[in-house]
């Protein structure tokens, strides 16, 4: 599987993004990776047109390592 890159957030940055839109009718959705880092996707970074959050375009990019989830069925 190819590497997926995501943008690394601080706790403060995560709090700033929750509930905010990055493009019309689309909202940021910060999640935690396997190391409990807060991250957003490259789509949210690249597609952001909200003038209050253009700084997301400059976030450090790291490899996405998801938390292990076993489908319960």
């Amino acid at each position, binding site marked *: 599987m190819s590497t*997926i890159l995501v943008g690394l957030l601080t706790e403060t940055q995560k709090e700033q993004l929750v509930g905010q839109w990055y493009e019309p009718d689309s909202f940021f959705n910060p*999640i935690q990776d396997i190391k409990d880092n807060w991250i957003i996707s490259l789509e949210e970074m690249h597609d952001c047109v909200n003038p209050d959050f253009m700084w997301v375009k400059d976030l450090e990019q790291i490899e996405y390592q998801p938390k292990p989830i076993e489908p*319960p069925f």
Partner: protein
Amino acid sequence: MPKTSVDADAQAFLTAAAITDPTISSSINKLVVDMKVAGVWTDIDVILPIVGGSASSHRVCLKTATNKVTWNGGITHNSTGVLFNGVNGYGNVDWNAPNLYNRTAIEWTKDIISGNGWSGIYISSVFGMQLSKLLTNMQTVSTGLNNLVSININDSFGLRASVVESIGTNGGKHYGNSGLLNQASPNSAPSGINYYIGALNSGGNPFLHNNRLQQFFVFGNSFNAAKIAIFKTLIEDFQTTLGR
């Protein structure tokens, strides 16, 4: 040249979604007329035809001409449909019911980019035992009480429908491109939880995000096999006229 009449419901949707493209407009009009002729229009609560190429147009419901989806996380919207990123993207559909039995969710997938993620509603007890479900997955279908068995379908595109007709023996059914895939036995009816597309809704938390390119969603009353087949034909024809 005589002016072609446009169905009022089709026109309301086109106006709400700010769509003026003639190909999309005529395709939407034909779809609405065909659904009414086929007798399935009144069974539907929400139709998301995913046309117009933007987050704003993709959230408009064809049945009500109102916004029915909140998009969250990484999603790409364009003329081919809505592509969930498999990381954190999902759509929260404003659709639930006092009880989820007598309910159907139909999804139309263009392609699976990677992985094998899910959409829908998943409910489990504190013991981790599945109580009820309304969910779809293209390549694997779980079956039986508490879903102890899985079967592989290997469909990578097309229709997947999940129907909860009733609580009890074989009250839950999964349909695919070839018709009925399997039956399950829900033993409770969850309520008040929205359907997620692009991920499963587990008590308000999205998980098992999928990485699918999707083009059409229908939510409504429980449909039998004949009505599921009607939807498959209508949706397939709709995608063909759009050239996608």
